[in-house]
């Protein structure tokens, strides 16, 4: 086993209630590292040409929970959940910061592959002694808060009973789903730490489809041995010095974005993206901080960025609601997107979304979509069950619950914005797709392209991304993002703990000893990962197959002129999108429709894809 790895992966067959330790060859790890890269490789190897026929919510889908060689050792420990996505039908590397990641590694595992479907609700409990499949009937139906509380207690008691009595055990790392995941709300999140989520991709519903409520890990071993330990220790210090120097980001987190992003950059969803600008100072960062941040620096394992700010409402109507910040995405999606500019309401709705196990972008995006249909008279009060007016917190709260429990119109919206739009269009005989803000099914993150002022400044950020509307992994020029998010998702570290890329690659080398450089990663490893992702995304199915070019596009709304703010009348340049898209495909060695060429597949050591790709070319 190469350095930087715990040494084995855990295979769990829930149908047979069987667990096995497996190895991944060093050559594969050197090509794909872990997380998103290794995930897409394992999925292709195991599912391969059957891809289009596999139901992501069926027992044959493989749920992967993977770390990478840098996880826990580099600042910002994270875990990557992946599999065939029920939202995009491709593969999304969906990551969250959590202590689960280093607990898993110190228990001796670099990752878990879960297949089959348990006959009754279960959870996995992983320690150095192996994996137990435990009954989870008592947890099924429980909200996030309650799930954490029960598991922490239950596991602590179980560990204290182990012999010899070694003293107190720290709490385990826990990944879990809420009611949304249990009820297979298609875009539901895999949750951790109350308000952290592997949100994009809908892997919460995959867990639900497998009757898997939670995965718990507790390790007592050291982090994996590395290639050059003294170098790693020095790099650890340098990396943290760098992160600590970013003073304003550390202080504000992303929680100052709710006002700033809309007001300055004009790229924040307002009323389902009908506008992207607002001037509501009530929604300013200091308003959140002064009233609700009970911990101004909140971090995950080995992190000095502490972009998380613990928020709690300590009095009044929503007393006891807890969440982080909320971070910018949820401030926007559970705030401005609903025409809400009151920090308390945004915290309340964010806490509800987290507790239900919804993804904080997907579910509120679908709710905002429904609210626009109500505004336009396409959905009536009768369809919804109540008036769904902008700014009306009760309505949004009700609908979030109806989606989680698949009640009434919630059952349709639980399919995610795009699928719901198709269904409602059919039902009503009206084209609703133009109000669905998604790319390849993935509801778009809270950063618009029209003002061209946000970090999403390249028009094709979402349009050609292999992760669709995912704002954490946008496409830019086919080089930068490869050594950026494609790398961090595969090394599995937080991309809010970024250091200069040279330092990150030195760090990787000191950990693994692999002869990987930024250049070789951008030339070979990165393109290999996104080429695989692109292929599986286009193979898609079984319910939806994306059409190259037509679906390599921004949401229609992103071509409407901005109606207000400093960038009024500006919009996404369609010609520029076409040109950049063509350039992007060319850079990656894909043809004019974005289909990998035979030459590229051979060069990237992906010749076994040729047969499937040939079908896409015709």
């Amino acid at each position, binding site marked *: 086993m190469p350095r930087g790895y715990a040494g084995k992966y855990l295979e769990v067959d829930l149908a047979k209630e069987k667990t096995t330790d497996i190895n991944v060859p060093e050559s594969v790890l050197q090509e794909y590292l872990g997380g998103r890269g290794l995930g897409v490789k394992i999925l292709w190897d195991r599912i391969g040409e059957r891809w289009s026929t596999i139901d992501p919510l069926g027992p044959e889908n493989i749920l992967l929970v993977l770390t990478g060689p840098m996880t*826990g*050792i580099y600042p910002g420990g994270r875990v990557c959940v992946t599999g065939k996505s029920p939202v995009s039908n491709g593969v999304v590397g969906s990551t969250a910061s959590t*202590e689960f990641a*280093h607990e898993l590694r*110190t228990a001796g595992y670099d990752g878990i592959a879960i297949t089959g479907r348990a006959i009754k609700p279960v959870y996995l409990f992983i320690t150095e002694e192996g994996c137990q499949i435990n009954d989870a009937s008592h947890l099924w139906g429980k909200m996030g*808060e309650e799930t*954490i*509380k029960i598991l*922490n*207690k239950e596991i602590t008691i179980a560990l204290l009973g182990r012999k*010899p*009595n*070694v*003293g*107190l055990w*720290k*709490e385990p790392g826990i990944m879990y789903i809420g009611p949304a995941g249990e009820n297979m709300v298609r875009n539901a999140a895999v949750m951790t*730490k*109350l*308000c952290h989520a592997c949100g994009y991709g809908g892997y919460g519903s995959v867990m639900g489809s497998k009757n898997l409520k939670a995965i718990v890990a507790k*390790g*007592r*071993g*050291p*982090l994996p*041995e590395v290639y050059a*330990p003294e170098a790693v*220790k020095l790099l*650890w210090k340098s990396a*943290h*010095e760098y992160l*600590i120097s970013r003073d304003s980001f550390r202080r504000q987190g992303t929680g100052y974005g709710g006002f700033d992003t809309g007001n300055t950059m004009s790229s924040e969803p307002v009323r389902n993206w009908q506008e992207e600008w607002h001037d509501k100072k009530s929604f300013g960062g200091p308003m959140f901080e002064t009233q609700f941040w*009970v*911990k101004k*620096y*909140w*971090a*995950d*394992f*080995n*992190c*000095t960025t*502490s972009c998380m700010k*613990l928020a*709690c409402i*300590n*009095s009044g109507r929503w*007393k*006891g609601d*807890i969440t982080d910040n909320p971070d910018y995405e949820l401030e926007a999606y559970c705030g401005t997107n609903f025409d809400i500019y009151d920090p308390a309401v945004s915290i309340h709705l964010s806490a509800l979304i987290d507790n239900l196990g919804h993804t904080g972008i997907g579910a509120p995006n679908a709710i905002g979509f429904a609210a626009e249909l109500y505004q336009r008279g396409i959905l009536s009060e009768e369809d919804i069950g109540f008036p769904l007016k902008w700014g009306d917190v009760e309505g949004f709260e009700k609908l979030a619950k109806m989606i989680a429990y698949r009640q009434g119109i919630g059952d349709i919206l639980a399919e995610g914005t795009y699928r719901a739009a198709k269904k409602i269009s059919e039902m009503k005989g009206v084209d609703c797709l133009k109000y669905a803000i998604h790319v390849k099914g993935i509801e778009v993150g809270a950063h618009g392209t029209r003002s061209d002022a946000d970090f999403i400044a390249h028009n094709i950020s979402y349009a050609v991304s292999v992760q669709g509307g995912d704002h954490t992994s946008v496409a830019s020029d086919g080089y930068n993002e490869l050594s950026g998010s494609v790398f961090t998702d595969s090394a599995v570290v937080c991309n809010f703990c970024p250091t200069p890329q040279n330092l990150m690659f030195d760090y990787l080398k000191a950990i693994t000893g692999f002869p990987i450089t930024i250049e070789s990663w951008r030339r070979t490893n990165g393109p290999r990962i996104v080429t695989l992702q692109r292929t599986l995304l286009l193979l898609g199915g079984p319910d939806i197959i994306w059409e190259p070019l037509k679906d390599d596009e921004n949401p229609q709304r992103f071509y409407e002129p901005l109606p207000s703010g400093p960038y009024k009348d500006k919009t996404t340049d369609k010609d520029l999108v076409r040109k950049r898209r063509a350039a992007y495909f060319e850079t990656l060695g894909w043809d004019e429709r974005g289909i990998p060429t035979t030459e590229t597949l051979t060069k990237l050591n992906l010749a076994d894809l040729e047969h499937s790709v040939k079908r896409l070319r015709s």
Partner: protein
Amino acid sequence: MSSSIWIVRDYEKCTGCRRCELACSMAHENWMWPEASRIRVFMPFPGLEVPHLCAQCDNYPCVTSCPFKALSIDKNTTAVVVDREKCTSCGLCIKACPGTVPFLHPRDNKATICDLCGGNPECVKVCREADYNALRLVHERMNTNRKLFARNPIDVARYLASKIFGEKGKELID
């Protein structure tokens, strides 16, 4: 009573980054090993992070509890020092500690207790570097308050919960 160094812990300021665990284990184990760190951050509920380490009680119940005289007090730092040769892994020091602070080392089951790094604790350095200041090194008169910090981390979190989350705090930890 004499004076000595001591690590002040300010629970509300702990971010849960656990760099203290990494720094401690790098100093004592020469590698990153959170569960072998002499300071361990418990988290009975997210947001309630409790750095847990020896408080150097004025009467050192752990030292007196050891039938094998494996524990002693360092005269310079007042830290508890474990003689790993003499330790038999009986666990009596863990029981004697009012905060259940000592634990058996994950490699060899020997009692493991903070030694204050000989006077210059690494955990404090990294916490200060990050400007979190949940840990601070002070030099003050030996007093009985120190012992009151030697508490089970879940008890500490229970108090902290009410302070941070208000009434809701009571519901979060049984």
